[in-house]
């Protein structure tokens, strides 16, 4: 038996060593997201992360806006006319130059499809010389942030069929598509005419593997160099692997409890605060999500700049204070330890869904923790659509969902959608705040960064006090990375895998 093993090992060595000399080593990336189509509106995130396609606006390491295919941009005073200067010397992978016309065409196509630009008041998109000029119907200061979203990525004119369908991904990034096999595989090679610095990694592959167990095993067996999104159980096991390094970064996707603030039990902000104070966030994060840093005492994580208030998770729990708050609102414990007011028990239903497998588990933890407070919570696990439909017909009491505030580098778009006068599918319900509306309106047109930052903090503070949605935990992006790789980091906005910053260790 040992002899056979040596023989096989020798054979394997011989095979791999010839392979190494024949072509450069491929960087193998494994992640759960399938590629459904070459269309940026559907699978643009994969082409952005694999650095095949670029957007007008990029982000730097801290998540601030940075020049992408546009080297700079300016706007008029009320932020209704925007001019983006297109980078000189940038080329698409088919050799054609990235012109203002090509960019305008690409954006026009993006506008016709569902995506981030839906809620943007865009009137016209025109090419003027080396500039793309966007006219808006009303002020919209976060426009550049929206143009950093993958559904607005710029493809060469040859990518589109006559009916607007995307038939090939001809981008302008440091990597070009070698082969695309939906729904699972994408191979890319370094693009030699890239306008920026040439990356060290020459070839990379992307494989969509939907099962968490399989992804973890692929990292352990060395089949993959980088594996994204590890399930909590595998994470613990991986941390003991000698030749792997585990990385984790909080994402701006927050597990939130959507509250029907029109409900008689929940219409007072003190009641919502009491419910929030009764949540053991650190317990949920450490015990269920296996990541203590996932505890979310506020809506926005640190990667969202001025929106983040830096509240400590320990401060967020205070069961005694929560009891007192509810007592002042007239709630008294009955014989079973359950709260009652005018003979009515404090009983609520929390709707959630299992597409994100952690949600039902977190829901039952909340059920248990609120029971300690005297609140009888019923958990109803159904379909994701039952939360928006319950919002529309008013039948929803509480809903547990995940909301991504960092779809674009500026959460304002999502905040406008969620906390406007009528609330939003995944945001406020039966709640509005005139002062907050005013600030949000100013944020639509204010372009001075300092002014914006202070207003963003105001909005976040108000949301934190009034709690139209109660934050519970932040999602963590996790990755297991082969130790032979150097320079790895996770983009907290999930815009890029940063392959261009990686190199093989000597």
């Amino acid at each position, binding site marked *: 038996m040992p002899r056979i093993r040596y023989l096989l090992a020798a054979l394997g060595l011989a095979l791999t060593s010839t392979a190494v000399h024949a072509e450069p080593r491929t960087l193998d990336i494994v992640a759960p997201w399938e590629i459904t189509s070459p269309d940026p509106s559907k699978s643009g995130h994969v082409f952005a992360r694999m650095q095949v396609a670029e957007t007008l606006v990029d982000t730097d390491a801290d998540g601030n806006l940075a020049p992408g295919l546009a080297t700079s941009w300016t706007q008029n005073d009320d932020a209704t006319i925007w001019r983006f200067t297109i980078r000189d010397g940038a080329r698409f992978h088919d050799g054609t130059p990235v012109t203002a016309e090509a960019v305008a065409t690409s954006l026009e196509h993006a506008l016709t499809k569902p995506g981030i630009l839906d809620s943007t008041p865009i009137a016209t998109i025109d090419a003027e010389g080396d500039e793309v000029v966007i006219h808006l119907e009303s002020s919209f200061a976060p426009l550049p942030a929206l143009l950093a979203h993958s559904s607005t990525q710029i493809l060469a004119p040859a990518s589109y069929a006559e009916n607007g369908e995307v038939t090939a991904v001809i981008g302008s990034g440091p990597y070009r598509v070698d082969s695309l096999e939906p729904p699972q595989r994408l191979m890319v090679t370094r693009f030699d005419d890239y306008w920026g610095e040439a990356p060290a990694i020459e070839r990379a592959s992307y494989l*969509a593997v939907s099962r968490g167990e399989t992804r973890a095993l692929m990292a352990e067996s060395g089949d993959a160099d980088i594996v994204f999104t590890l399930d909590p159980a595998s994470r613990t096991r991986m941390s003991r692997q000698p030749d792997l390094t585990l990385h984790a970064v909080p994402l701006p996707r927050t597990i939130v409890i959507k509250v029907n603030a029109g409900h008689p039990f929940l219409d007072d902000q003190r009641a919502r605060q009491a419910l929030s104070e009764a949540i053991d966030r650190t317990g949920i994060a450490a015990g269920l999500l296996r990541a203590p840093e996932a505890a979310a005492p506020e809506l926005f994580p640190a990667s969202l700049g001025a929106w983040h208030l830096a509240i400590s998770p320990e401060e967020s729990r205070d069961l005694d204070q929560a009891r007192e708050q509810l007592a002042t609102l007239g709630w008294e414990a009955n014989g079973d330890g359950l709260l009652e007011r005018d003979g009515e028990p404090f009983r609520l239903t929390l709707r959630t869904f299992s597409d994100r497998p952690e949600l039902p588990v977190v829901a039952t933890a909340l059920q248990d923790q609120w029971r300690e407070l005297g609140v009888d919570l019923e958990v109803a696990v159904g379909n*994701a659509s039952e939360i928006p439909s319950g919002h529309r017909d008013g039948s929803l009491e509480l809903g547990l969902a995940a909301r991504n505030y960092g779809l674009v580098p500026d959460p304002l778009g999502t905040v406008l959608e969620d906390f406007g006068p009528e609330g939003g599918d995944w945001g406020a319900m039966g709640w509005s705040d005139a002062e907050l509306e005013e600030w949000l309106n100013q944020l639509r047109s204010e372009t001075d960064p300092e002014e914006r930052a202070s207003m963003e903090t105001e909005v976040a503070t108000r949301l934190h006090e009034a709690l139209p949605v109660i934050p519970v935990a932040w999602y963590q992006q996790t990755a297991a990375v082969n130790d032979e790789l150097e320079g790895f980091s996770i983009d907290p906005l999930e815009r890029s895998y940063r392959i261009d910053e990686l190199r093989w260790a000597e």
Partner: protein
Amino acid sequence: MTRGLGRGLPALLLQRLLQAGLVAWMVGTLTFVLTRTLPGDMAYRIAAGRYGHDMVDTAAAEAVRAELALNQPASSAYFGWLWDLLQFDLGRSLVSGEPVVRELWHQLGHSLGLAAVAVALSLLLGPPLGLAAGLRPRGMLDRLSEVVASVLRALPPFAVGLVLILVFAVGLGWLPAAGHGRTAHSVLPALTLALGLAAVSSRVARNAMADVSQSAYYAFSRTKGLSDRLTFMRHGLRNVAVPVVAYLGVQFVYLIEGVVVVETLFAWPGIGHALVHAIVARDVPMIQGTALIMGLLFVLLNTVVDIVCHLLDPRRRHA
């Protein structure tokens, strides 16, 4: 399964063709009814499948509903589908927008390749082991193989696959854990399916061999002076082959069901994998297409089994 064979091959094929038509209609109707009765709003599901969960809101769902005319009554959707099917048009995927036929064609190749390797491997493993065990009933090998076969058949393919990955990919590092593209990638998924198949075929072969070896004609052949080997070749092999091959037909159910699980576990881009994702995304034309292909495949494979039995067993031809 063997009914109708006496009337000869053409009659058999005609019967199978009718069966295929019936299966197509029933599978399609059932999947239609089942996907319609699944809880939750289809428009949200499809929007999530297309644009990702982060992008789903009522506006996206309404856009999908309008585009795909999801509001039309179920009956008109059903008859529309039936009419298209009669023209061999399976429609387009609601998620990717590609014609279902094109997607299936691509995936079917992967699945059939995997299934063929699995059946071949199972035939290499199962029947020889069964024959050896059947020649010495209640011997060491017989008892051991019975235990192993029972365990392998009792474990779901998912668990068998995980164990194989742990041993051969993580432990020994001989084979890739998952993925596709190289030949080595197909070994573990095929082996996962093959072990389950071989577990049954080895027992079927063992029982057939035990029956044959205790039969009068077998004893007679030994008495008249033929060697063990010649007796087996002339009087054993063909008689044992008939139940083994006939049973393969039954086992295709296991194979088709196993493909769904194994493909998901090993990230193999076949129809099983596609079916799982289509169900999650409520991609009705894709669900109907994959279920249809699987149903028809089952009929086709059973027809092939019938034909092989027909050729193997002269008694059926002359009956």
